[in-house]
């Protein structure tokens, strides 16, 4: 089963690229591939001009220092048997050979940076709120000053108000520390708020890719339009949705022939059912995989 099929994108330094799609589209698998947690069947992952796709683990230590991740479930990614202080200090102790006093001052600096009260340092993760736990995860991820942060649904498990705090924190940190982000989210408004460029994924494929502004203001692919109109936005104009959603996504194990979206697409033609549309550019850095435009 191809979880991810022919996905390509680039992330420039200091930029945020968002992968948007629903469950089963392969976006989290892409992140895992970047982290080299899954094997890559074909294609390349190039970081800072180095092809890391097939390197052995022993050759990747430098890479692991420069690429870190923050996951969806804050409690699930923090060791409940450790104090918050040690959770944040762990990467410092593992990757850098710095003296104890420096670890201490660095951890305190990080807690200030992410807005954690000092009192949390002695606690275990379970006594923290979701927002606080996610701040710990972020502090840990930025502790060794990575270049790239992978964010897998970093706020989906949080309340609206907490989400706002954490998203703004991530934006601040990006500027302060000159970070780049790859953000995976099912929420297109979060993608819009955070990202410079967006890739929309469906059943393992990128169906549309462009700047965040363009994707939201001039979506081309019928699935992108469906996603936007389903997004329950608060703008009044979105109340009259332009597309009536039909059906459910098919199984990723047995994707339909031709364009994977054709069973749910109101514009599907015979060609769509037979042939997969290639990702083509419509000029202006806007790519779409759809026979309406190819």
């Amino acid at each position, binding site marked *: 089963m191809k979880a991810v099929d022919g996905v390509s994108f680039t992330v420039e330094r200091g930029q945020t690229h968002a992968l948007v799609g629903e469950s089963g589209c392969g976006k989290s698998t892409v992140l895992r591939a970047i982290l080299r947690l899954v094997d890559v069947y074909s294609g390349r992952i190039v970081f800072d001009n180095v092809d890391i796709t097939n390197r052995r683990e022993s050759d990747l230590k430098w890479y692991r220092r420069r690429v870190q991740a923050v996951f969806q479930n804050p409690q699930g990614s923090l060791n409940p048997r450790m104090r918050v202080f040690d959770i944040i200090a762990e990467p410092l102790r593992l990757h850098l050979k710095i003296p104890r006093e420096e670890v201490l001052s660095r951890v305190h600096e990080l807690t200030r940076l992410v807005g954690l009260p000092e009192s949390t340092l002695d606690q275990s993760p379970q006594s923290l709120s979701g927002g606080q736990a996610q701040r710990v995860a972020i502090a840990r991820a930025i502790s060794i000053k990575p270049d790239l942060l992978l964010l897998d649904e970093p706020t989906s498990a949080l309340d609206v108000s907490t989400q*706002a705090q954490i998203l703004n924190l991530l934006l601040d940190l990006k500027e302060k520390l000159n970070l780049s982000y790859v953000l995976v989210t099912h929420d297109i408004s979060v993608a819009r708020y955070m990202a410079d460029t967006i890739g929309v994924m469906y059943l393992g494929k990128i169906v549309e890719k462009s700047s965040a*502004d363009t994707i939201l203001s001039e979506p081309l692919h019928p699935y992108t339009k469906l996603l936007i*109109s389903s997004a*329950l*936005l608060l703008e009044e104009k979105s109340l009259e949705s332009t597309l009536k959603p039909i059906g459910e996504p098919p199984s990723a194990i047995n994707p339909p022939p031709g364009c994977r979206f054709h069973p749910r697409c109101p514009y599907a033609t015979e060609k769509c059912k037979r042939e997969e549309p290639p990702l083509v550019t419509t000029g202006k850095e806007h790519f779409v995989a759809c026979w309406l435009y190819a």
Partner: protein
Amino acid sequence: MSAGKPLLSIRGLSIDYYTLSGIIHAVRRVDLELCSAESLCIVGESGSGKSTLGVALSLSLPPNAVVKSGSIVYSDIDLLRARRDVINKIKGREITMIFQDPLATFSPLHTIGEHLEDIAISKLGVSRRDASNIVIDVLKKVRMPDVDRVLKSYPHELSGGMLQRAAIGAAILTKPKIIVADEPTSMLDATIQAQILSLLKELVKSEGMSLVLITHNLGVALRVCEKTAIMYAGVVVEDGGTLDIIKEPLHPYTRSLLAAIPRSSHRVSRIVHIQGEPLDPRLEVSGCPFADRCPSARGECSESVNYVRIGDRRVYCNLYSR
């Protein structure tokens, strides 16, 4: 508010949970009304008390919950103090519930068909043959694809969206007066969520039911319910027409909630986030629970606040008292 007696009347309701870490004041002095064929959305974040309210309405409060004060009156009966046999006639029949996790609704050991037929037989008193026809009808009403296959399927064989359709089917089977739906779509994908919400909205109209929809998402409220109540730390801080509240939020908490939502129409300045954390639910509060985080709070706000009526809206805030 439509003229005439409301279908459901919640008055001065306070519910506590007794837990190992203390007494949680989950719902504080709530007054709300629901009329026939009306849909009301209860919006709040975690700790707001919305789910406890939903559980109370569907007559499923757990043993460690204590109704400190107040009443829920339906059809001249106080649901919180009625006899067991009276409650059993109402629960699951006149008032039904849809849960957030579709898997929680269904027994893993029974097919969907068996589950639905059992409801028809036990709650409507019909024969198995009649039950079978009623169930097929209901599945058609919820626009279930592949009805024959679904009837014979076990819950784990169906997708979240289809299960939730079946759950809606189970909820409307007895032609209830009120459906209480607690975050019915938050575990579903965006495109499926949109389908299920529009189904709920249509059914409520066509079946003439009332709906209490509990959600953290104002976008859901806007699409489904004509009326909304905003809850914070157990208190209803504002209620009224959904569109009114979204266009012109009155309570500072509602304003902060709206300001915290990323809008996708334009990437303007930052979304605004409020500092601090929600109120510890073990604390008693005689005034407004939002006072310690409120940018407009005055000295007396945490001690004393009154509800102010503005047209058919209501807000719990000293900013509006005369």
